[in-house]
């Protein structure tokens, strides 16, 4: 190697060092306005949460889990809350009321807690048809019954016409943590297998098509459902070997993997050909130029399981309704930390990056 080559590679090392330092810097919320990107679940959202909310609220919020935990007199309770903003209110496979129940039940479920009680707050727009309100009330009631959870508190506000898209719903769920496993991103270790509970992209694609903005029609239904049966099965099959779970909602499977890789300083290695995608979803994504790995789901989870328990865990997932297509899609690795690598269906490898923002209309 000549002296010139050596100095060039030293310079490259120096630059890479600068990038690493910049990456490791604490997230900062420095934008002058909230933009749609702050709601898209990518880098902007992360900067807002870690740069503004975590410093302000501190404590348990800093764990950034789907649900917060609290010990009261020896009992570990889990609490989760979510706001639902969906257009249109009804779409193939579900509606906003059903989402408001399942979404919160699922956030608790992937935290290892079965939901016991829900509170529901409705923000209604002046002029909303009573029929629609009645339909969503029924949807909330039947989803709650299906998930085995009671609605025990609620609130209603009405805002002037044009101040809301028909209705918004906030739901908060309370559950008790299941003692069969201790779930945390910190429990991820290289070698863990990554399980996906079924085919992806159906909810996000169903919503996009239901908006009718694309002059594109396909038989795609939202996958909204309670994930507790799947979680229950996993806890039974893998117990303590189940290390962590997440539901792959906004930002899809890719965003969850990036979040966890970053949170636990591990790498994720995913085989694209192993990821189940229904043909209609794949085709619609192709036409719209989207990658199903980034499209939202409302009834799919990722589970990280010790290798010797993976087979049993996968079998358990497949016996649950909606889990027939569950698959092992990859594994946790040590290097390079914080990165998600994808072996593409074509055979090349690339980084499966975090989204910067989302130029498309909000979908969930």
């Amino acid at each position: 190697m000549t002296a010139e080559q050596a100095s060039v590679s030293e310079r490259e090392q120096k630059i890479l060092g600068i990038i690493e330092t910049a990456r490791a810097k604490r997230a900062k919320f420095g934008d002058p306005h909230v933009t749609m990107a702050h709601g898209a679940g990518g880098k902007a959202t992360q900067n807002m949460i870690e740069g503004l909310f975590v410093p302000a609220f501190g404590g348990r919020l800093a764990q950034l889990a789907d649900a917060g935990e609290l010990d009261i007199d020896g009992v570990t309770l889990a609490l989760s809350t979510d706001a639902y903003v969906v257009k249109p209110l009804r779409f193939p496979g579900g509606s906003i009321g059903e989402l408001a129940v399942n979404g919160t039940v699922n956030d608790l479920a992937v935290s290892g807690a079965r939901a016991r009680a829900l509170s529901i707050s409705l923000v209604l727009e002046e002029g909303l048809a009573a029929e629609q309100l009645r339909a969503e009330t029924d949807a909330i009631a039947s989803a709650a019954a299906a998930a085995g959870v009671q609605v025990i508190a609620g609130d209603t506000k009405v805002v002037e016409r044009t101040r809301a898209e028909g209705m918004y719903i906030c739901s908060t769920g309370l559950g008790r943590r299941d003692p069969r496993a201790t779930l945390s991103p910190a429990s991820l270790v290289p070698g863990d297998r990554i399980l996906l509970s079924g085919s992806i992209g159906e909810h996000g694609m169903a919503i996009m098509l239901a908006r009718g903005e694309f002059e594109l029609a396909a038989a795609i239904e939202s996958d909204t459902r309670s994930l507790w049966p799947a979680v229950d099965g996993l806890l039974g099959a893998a117990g303590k070997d189940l290390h962590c779970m997440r539901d792959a909602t906004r930002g899809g499977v890719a965003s969850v993997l990036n979040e966890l890789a970053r949170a636990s300083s591990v790498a994720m290695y995913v085989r694209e050909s192993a990821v189940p995608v229904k043909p209609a979803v794949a085709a619609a994504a192709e036409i719209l130029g989207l990658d199903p790995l980034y499209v939202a789901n409302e009834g799919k989870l990722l589970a990280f399981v010790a290798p010797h328990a993976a087979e049993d865990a996968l079998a358990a997932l497949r016996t649950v309704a909606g889990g027939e297509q569950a698959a092992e899609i990859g594994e946790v690795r040590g290097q390079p930390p914080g990165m998600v690598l994808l072996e593409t269906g074509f055979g090349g490898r690339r980084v499966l990056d975090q989204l910067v923002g989302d130029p498309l209309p909000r979908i969930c």
Partner: protein
Amino acid sequence: MKFVDEFRDPALGRAAAGEILSLLEPGRHYKLMEVCGGHTHSIYRYGVDDLLPANVELVHGPGCPVCVLPMGRIDDGLAIAEQPGVIFTCFGDMMRVPGSRGSLLDARAAGADVRMVYSPLDALRIAEHNPQREVVFFAIGFETTAPSTALTLKRARADGVRNFSCMCSHVTIVPPLRALLESPDLRLDGFIGPGHVSTVVGARPFEFIPAEYGKPVVIAGFEPLDVLQAITMILAQLAEGRCEVENQYRRVVPYEGNPRALEVLGEVFELRPHFEWRGLGFISHSGLKLCEAYADLDAEVRFSVPGVRVADPKACQCGEVLKGVIKPWECKVFGTACTPDRPIGTCMVSSEGACAAYYNFGRFAREREVV
């Protein structure tokens, strides 16, 4: 998916990669430019570069119409978008590109009515539904998208839609290629020609590249196997001492292009004397504007725009990166003043730009070399 999966077959991919190996001259380093941003996307999406030997390097060219718009042009768009009563429409990926004082997304957050459309006809439909508002379409793209803008303007004229206008930032492909080739420090061995542009202009306009500059061109499709096959064809030309325009994308691209689309372009547009490109500077006859007959639908005529040129920052070396003269990390501002969050130059704007890709994945690429 039929007619798609066949072009993403990993076994065929491995075979093509093997053929590429057999065509290489030992010890020689090959630099090939994929002109079109669509190819960059495919290469990135399918990990095509990961299947290539280390001495075949792909250089991302100037064919991303979003990235090449200069800041001053975005500022002009922002000035229109911020006028009261205006609905400003554009393609989704245009919304994040920074001007000198923020992006269209920022303008929307500050109150401007900026809407994403998938087609210029969507913008025209918005105009028809909002007759009391002025609807402006920010038209961008090469000869690929220009015909759909032209047809939309013809439709607006025919339907008598008066509240619709177009801010035309369409560009043409040949002048920037010529500008690159004129550069004395250019280090490229061949070009993967732009498939979509060629469906309109055909293959003939690229004949000057082998004829005058001695570099092979292979017009390619956008599936990963298309790209690998095009690389094979370029390397075969180099190995056999041939130098010509070849058409790998024959299933879509006729050698003479699409005469009807070209006719519509000629009817609606005329060449600007010069147009500025981010990173490449002013290039003669490289941009389109609405011709005299359509001037009343020209947003730049209807609204006052600042039209101020915002110089690329002096330290930015995107031009050299595009020509393959330097690697991204050799640029003076790379990773310090210029980052994906706050991009300065074209190569950092899009996540597929050479600099952004290196910023995000450079470390991974280094580890790959060790593998």
